[in-house]
């Protein structure tokens, strides 16, 4: 820490150093931004290319003795070649198949692989490369600039200029933009999307290699510097604006200068913390970047890439069949293996606890968490410090750790809950890195890099778990209890809600699921389990150092989860066993551990997407349905013996279900809706029709408060809806469906249906974790009613099949039924017949009439005139945002204005 202020010269010196470092960051950021622009994925491998570029330069120049220019170009070429090979083998083929979160983790796997490769080839010692133009610094206006600095600046300019020319001024650049936004359209136009993606990946590798090679002389090269470059790069890119190339450059410079200044004036620990705080602040308050003006948010097409993962739900009997002998084996294991192996088994179980938490958050809820180890650190260090320095009992210390982790998790998720997808993942990574630097930097508290020693063994009361065997059984017992509790919670409505959030957050919200609250709950569970795991680790080892609970550990646990099987709860155990025991069993390959981890993570996504356990369940589970189901025919329903809670709303034809008065909405220069007023009588079917662009869907969105109206009122059974969120509106009894059937992928038909009943559920997750009889009864009753409804509409035979494999007609019916499960009073259907053939439309009409006569009210937007004429009691016609006509179907058919504006000449015979 400096006590005296710096002189002007020193300030200038630091500034120059900052600019140079900033240029390097900018180069890395540019590569990340380029790949993001084209693919929508934040490519965390970028830093790896930098370090490989630097290390190969060293080898060519020093080991091979080649002259510097040759060594330079060879290093660039070799690294670019590596990038192209990796890209062609992994990134490019996976891109059309995996969702964004998985792609992000794939790049994490690639980064780990490259770190591991560097470790194997170059070992752990640091290397130094000689500067290109000698060591003499150059005097520039009185400031000493390292000669290498000019090389760095020169290459950076070349790279920036080249990229700018490419993107803005070539056909290839425009094609790249098309690939980014709409790869399907691009392919139809003959654009070779795969080749362009590979091209951009290779280009990013080239940029990274140049950056790494040119900065090599002024830094100490170590195998894990790849992560350092990546971290700086992604922070720079986030600061500068993800898809803005100039922003990436600006972000890099800004970061470099800010860090050097912070390090110079305060400390390097402060500099790290500052960088991460800046990142978090940017992600939260200005996610488009500090240097990008307002601007259009990138149309994230990848959000719409909903992977139709075919669902595997094993029979409970099969699970018991496999789990019971496995449990017996685990119990007997300590008596079958040697003492040395014993301690590895304990570590495996302890890590599994953290992976279990990760499965709830990532596997079920779909939120990528790159900082799980940070919570292990929080739990471990808190418990250890309290037990060692303050004599607190290990049990209480663990509880304190749990409390701290829970608080941090709730804070972190509260501030990030508005972030989507990649931004949330980055925030967790930032948090993880922050904790990393704190554990290393706060030497007085944590013991710094050398760690904390003398941590006592775990004890409950007077019983001390001193031996590995005792810890093994303790951990095993904890795991059994946790799995029982989590299994109960995941098969309940809570589990369905989490999966719905993973599948389609917008649809989940429309079903009345409180998305932020559920995400926080999942995050809390994940953090608490990680904290427990960290504490147990400390007590088991009697020692805790930063690298035991650092970010590479987070990546390792992700690998364990993916390889074992996401969303299976027990999958993590298989993954933990594989990645913990294998290196122990084959000691010589310990050096290759990181390499293998990276490879395993990458390969798992491509060839084993269900993981080991998921794959096993697929073998013993129900056979997947491959043939197209024939047309629908309603079966005779078997009425359940116990009906659901009475909630019958007596339809009184005189009351108004919905009243809209004077609705108006303007989008920029377009008056989408102008002074629209209408009423929907209770217990009727009202159809809202009109030409394309008439404002029908806008009216719908205004009613459900997806966005607020400029003017006007909406009343639902006399109650005004102004100021309510879509979730609130759903709670008042108004359920809507969407134009494209938002059936939840990754869930069965029955699960989709039951998800609709979310708001009716009385018994929450906690009660299911305890397997309370009342909660189980409610679930059983719910399933019976769901089955009855499925049978009624002819979807019974698709009960356990992945809902997204259903034909479109069935999916639309399912969506309407799902809305029914919420016991609505008013159903808003947005083009329910779009994409249906006439037989399917007839089925839909039958259902709608029955629903109306049962007592609900329906408002639907439609283009299908025969459906409208068939079912509607009242038709409202919009044209150009205004009410054109209102009346019975017969009246509307005969209204000349309507015919002119809308139906056109073709409707003469009808």
């Amino acid at each position, binding site marked *: 820490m400096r006590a005296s202020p710096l002189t002007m010269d020193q300030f200038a010196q630091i500034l120059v150093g900052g600019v140079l470092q900033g240029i390097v960051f900018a180069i890395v950021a540019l590569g990340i931004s380029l790949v993001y622009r084209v693919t929508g994925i934040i490519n965390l491998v970028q830093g790896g290319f930098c370090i490989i570029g630097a290390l190969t330069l060293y080898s060519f120049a020093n080991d091979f003795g080649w002259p510097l220019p040759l060594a330079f170009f060879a290093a660039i070429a070799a690294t670019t070649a590596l990038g192209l090979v990796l890209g062609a083998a992994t990134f490019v083929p996976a891109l059309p198949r995996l969702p964004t979160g998985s792609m992000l983790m794939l790049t994490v796997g690639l980064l780990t692989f490259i770190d591991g490769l560097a470790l194997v080839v170059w070992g752990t010692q640091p290397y130094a490369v000689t500067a290109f133009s000698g060591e003499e610094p150059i005097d520039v206006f009185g400031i000493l600039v390292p000669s290498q600095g000019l090389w760095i600046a020169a290459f950076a300019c070349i790279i920036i200029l080249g990229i700018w020319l490419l993107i803005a001024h070539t056909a290839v650049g425009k094609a790249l933009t098309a690939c980014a*936004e709409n790869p399907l359209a691009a392919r139809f*136009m003959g654009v070779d999307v795969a080749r362009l993606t590979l091209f951009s990946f290779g280009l990013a590798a080239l940029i990274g290699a140049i950056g790494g090679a040119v900065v090599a002389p002024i830094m100490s090269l170590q195998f894990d510097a790849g992560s350092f470059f990546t971290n700086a790069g992604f922070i720079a890119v986030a600061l500068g604006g993800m898809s803005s190339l100039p922003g990436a450059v600006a972000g890099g410079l800004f970061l470099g200068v800010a860090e050097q200044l912070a390090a110079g004036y305060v400390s390097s620990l402060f500099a790290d913390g500052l960088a991460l705080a800046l990142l978090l602040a940017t992600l939260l308050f200005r996610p488009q970047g500090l240097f990008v003006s307002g601007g259009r948010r990138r*149309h994230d097409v990848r959000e719409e890439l909903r992977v139709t993962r075919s669902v595997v739900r094993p029979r409970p009997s099969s699970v018991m069949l496999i789990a019971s002998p496995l449990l017996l084996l685990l119990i007997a294991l300590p008596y079958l293996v040697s003492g040395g192996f014993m301690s590895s088994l304990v570590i495996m179980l302890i890590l599994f606890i953290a992976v279990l938490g990760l499965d709830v958050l990532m596997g079920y809820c779909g939120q990528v968490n790159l900082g799980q180890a940070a919570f292990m650190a929080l739990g471990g260090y808190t418990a250890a410090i309290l037990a060692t320095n303050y004599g607190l009992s290990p049990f209480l210390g663990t509880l304190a750790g749990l409390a701290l982790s829970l608080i941090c998790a709730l804070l972190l998720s509260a501030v990030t809950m508005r972030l989507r997808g990649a931004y949330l993942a980055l925030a967790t990574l930032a948090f993880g890195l922050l904790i990393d630097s704190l554990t290393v930097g706060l030497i007085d508290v944590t013991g710094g890099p050398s760690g904390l020693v003398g941590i006592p063994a775990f004890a409950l009361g007077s019983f001390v778990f001193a031996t590995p065997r005792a810890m093994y059984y303790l951990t095993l017992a904890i795991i059994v209890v946790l799995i029982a509790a989590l299994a109960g919670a995941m098969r309940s409505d809570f589990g369905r809600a989490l999966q719905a959030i993973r599948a389609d957050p917008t649809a989940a919200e429309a079903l009345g699921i409180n998305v932020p609250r559920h995400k926080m709950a999942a995050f809390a569970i994940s953090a608490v389990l990680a904290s427990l795991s960290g504490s147990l680790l400390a007590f088991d080892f009697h020692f805790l150092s930063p690298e035991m609970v650092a970010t590479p550990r987070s990546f390792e646990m992700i690998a364990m989860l993916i390889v074992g099987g996401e969303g299976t709860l027990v999958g993590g155990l298989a993954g933990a066993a594989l990645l913990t025991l294998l290196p122990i069993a084959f000691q010589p390959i310990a050096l290759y551990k990181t390499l293998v981890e990276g490879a395993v993570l990458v390969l798992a996504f491509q060839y084993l997407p269900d993981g080991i356990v998921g794959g096993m369940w697929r073998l013993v589970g129900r056979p997947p349905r491959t043939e197209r189901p024939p047309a629908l025919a*309603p079966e005779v329903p078997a009425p359940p013996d116990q009906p659901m809670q009475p909630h*019958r709303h007596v339809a009184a034809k005189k009351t108004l279900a919905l009243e809209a008065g004077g609705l108006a909405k303007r989008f920029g220069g377009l008056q989408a809706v102008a002074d629209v007023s209408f009423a929907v009588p209770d217990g009727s079917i009202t159809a809202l029709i009109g030409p*394309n662009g008439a404002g029908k869907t806008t009216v719908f969105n205004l009613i459900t408060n997806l966005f607020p109206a400029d003017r006007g009122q909406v009343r639902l059974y006399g109650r005004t809806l102004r100021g309510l969120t879509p979730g609130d509106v759903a709670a008042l009894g108004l359920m809507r469906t969407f134009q494209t059937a938002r059936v939840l992928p990754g869930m069965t038909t029955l699960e989709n249906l039951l998800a609709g009943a979310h708001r009716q559920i009385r018994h929450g997750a906690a009660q299911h974790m305890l397997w309370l009889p009342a909660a189980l009864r409610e679930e059983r009753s719910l399933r019976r009613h769901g089955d009855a409804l499925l049978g*009624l509409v002819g979807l019974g035979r698709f009960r356990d099949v992945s809902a997204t494999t259903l034909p479109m007609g069935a999916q639309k019916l399912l969506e309407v039924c799902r809305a029914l499960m919420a016991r609505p009073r008013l159903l808003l259907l947005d083009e329910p017949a779009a994409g*249906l053939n006439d037989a399917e439309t007839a089925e839909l009409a039958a259902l709608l009439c029955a*629903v109306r006569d049962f007592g609900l009210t329906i408002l639907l937007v439609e283009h299908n005139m025969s459906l409208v004429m068939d079912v509607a009691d009242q038709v409202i016609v919009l044209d150009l945002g205004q009410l054109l006509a209102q009346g019975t179907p017969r009246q509307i058919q005969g209204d000349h204005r309507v015919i002119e504006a809308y139906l056109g000449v073709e*409707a003469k015979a009808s």
Partner: protein
Amino acid sequence: MLQLTAIEAGYRDLTVLHGIDLEVRAGEIVALIGPNGAGKTTLARAIAGLLPLRRGQISLAGQSVEHLPPWMRIRLGMAHAPEGRQVVAGLTVADNLRLGAHALRRRRQESWISARIAVVCELFPPLLERLDHAAGNLSGGQQQMLAIARALMTEPKLLVLDEPSLGLAPALVADIFRLIERLRAQGIAILLSEQNARMTLAIADRAYVIETGNIALQGSGRELLGRSDIVERYLGIVADSTSANRRNSEDRHVRFVRALAKIFDA
């Protein structure tokens, strides 16, 4: 112009097309009608080259193309307006049109492309007014025009239109169909894949009916329009219902409502 022989294609373990034979000649409109899920879009993708064939041949202007990538088929005179329009929302209308000519970029100068844009926009005046607008800001109907205009950029000899009427109001659909007839008059072979059977059969010279991956029927547009079973199935014209039919559906309706009541009520 286009000849499909015994086409079999699908996705992963699902075979969607089970042996399709189809032909489109220059200067004729061939309609492909069928229910949702019958394989119309799969067939369009197979023709475009986005989907590999399991079996069968595709020939364009007498040349075998089933092994050629999409850009080569475009060079040989094939063009597509895909289902759901698929415009690139972030690019301008002009750039979207340029993208349509992407496959020709090596053979044609920028001046040719600009001239082509002007020619194509003559058919679609609303596009001419909006060349600099982001494609994402266009209405559904304008986006459909853009999709067709984009397909015309390469001066195609074969035009495959996948459900151009989807989501559009009848008056607009009538406009688009009139345009399709104009294109036929220019000698282009047109394959029109649609669910809107009534309007499609009215302008089609010949038509194929596809059902669960097979061609169920084929004939001239007028022939098929006249067949009562087609009419019933696809045109939504309610046949004379006998009293038995009406009683049946009422019966079912009552059972339906009762069953709903049992599920949701005391």
